[in-house]
């Protein structure tokens, strides 16, 4: 309970709420587009770099099982999501696959918020987790986009969509950062640390202010999304989170690491996936998949989900 409250008074979460409030009261506060882009370049590169530096001092045997777990969940979660949406939610194939692609992938900001939360409790989740984010980003999208291809021939261009995902800016920055950090190692990284480590949490506050404003626009679409999707956007992440905690602990992750892993797996992408789905499944409704991943699951995870996963991980792993 207390740890939940501590999440609500974190500057990151409160900045997100401030962004929502700003839009609700129709403030003219506006975040310039280029700044938003620059912040996301910075955040992704910074995660990658830090992960890479950590990787360079981690034994291979320590992260091989978490890697396997990540890939497995990247394949299974979109399939589960698709089945639930198609057979329980009665969505058509395009929409079910489109939404599933988002939940197969990952929201980097949710990941960062989970790391920050764990650290604010004095925990230190494994340093190589950013490598798993990069790993988790792609397969889920691919799996989900394949489904309509297999069931019937999908109308959009899957090849173009795959190129879009694999060369997407988030992958380039995360993977690129990982490699640079790995090759640089702690010593060469030191001079750039004040910028990429010292400034990180503060930059995140600005980013979440903007995400709050973007999310607020989505909230207006909640009605169009319907009750089923609302439930889906909360229940499925919790299920995925529990699954991830079990698999994570099993693969050797620490309790804190497993809770961060859960936040990752349960989160829905809202940068890489939407672009790919728009191309590969043009008939899928952006309103549905963006509202689910950005309007429902993201705020849920950032406020309640992350402390919840931590609680569950403590139960399971304690």
């Amino acid at each position, binding site marked *: 309970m207390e740890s939940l409250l501590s999440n609500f008074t974190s500057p990151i979460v409160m900045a997100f709420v401030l962004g929502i409030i700003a839009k609700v009261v129709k403030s003219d506060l506006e975040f310039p*587009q280029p700044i938003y882009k620059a912040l996301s370049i910075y955040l992704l590169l910074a995660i990658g770099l830090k992960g890479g530096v950590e990787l360079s001092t981690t034994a291979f045997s320590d992260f091989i099982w978490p890697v396997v777990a990540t890939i497995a969940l990247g394949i299974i979660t979109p399939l589960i999501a698709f089945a639930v949406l198609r057979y329980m939610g009665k969505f058509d194939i395009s929409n079910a696959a489109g939404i599933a692609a988002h939940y197969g992938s990952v929201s980097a900001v949710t990941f960062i918020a989970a790391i920050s939360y764990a650290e604010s409790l004095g925990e230190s989740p494994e340093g190589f987790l950013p490598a798993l984010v990069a790993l988790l980003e792609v397969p889920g999208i691919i799996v989900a986009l394949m489904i309509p291809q297999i069931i019937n021939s999908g109308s959009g261009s899957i090849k173009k969509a795959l190129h879009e995902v694999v060369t997407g800016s988030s992958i380039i920055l995360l993977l690129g950062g990982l490699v640079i950090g790995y090759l640089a190692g702690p010593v060469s990284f030191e001079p750039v640390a004040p910028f990429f480590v010292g400034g990180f949490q503060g930059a995140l506050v600005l980013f979440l202010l903007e995400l709050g404003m*973007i999310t607020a*626009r989505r909230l207006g679409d909640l009605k169009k999304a319907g009750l089923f999707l609302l439930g889906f956007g909360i229940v499925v992440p919790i299920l995925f989170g529990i699954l991830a905690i079990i698999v994570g602990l099993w693969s050797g992750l620490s309790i804190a690491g497993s809770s961060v892993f859960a936040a990752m797996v349960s989160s829905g992408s*809202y940068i890489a996936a939407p*672009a790919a789905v*728009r191309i590969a499944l*043009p008939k899928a*409704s952006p*309103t549905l998949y*963006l509202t689910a991943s950005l309007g429902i699951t993201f705020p849920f995870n950032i406020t309640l989900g992350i402390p919840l996963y931590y609680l569950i991980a403590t139960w399971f792993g304690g």
Partner: protein
Amino acid sequence: MKLTELFLVTIVTERILRDDLVDLIRDNGGKGYTITDVEGEGSRGTRVSDFEGKNVKIETVVSREVGNKIIDQIAEHYFENYAVIVYANPVKVVRGDKYI
């Protein structure tokens, strides 16, 4: 200065189609184009490119035939599933033969 009458075709659409439409213009004989970042509203709502900078406006000065081909292609491939508006008007162009 000699002025040639050509057509200015203007397309406003989702940012995600930007590169595809540039290819489409080239493939149909367009010799150049100008792109502007814009915002807008029409009959379709949500964009996936909220993060990417809203809409783009693509303008291309072309001959009547090329213009018609471009318009037909866009109508065929993008009208059903994407947010897009296309319109055209005649313009007098300096050194017009460069663009035919």
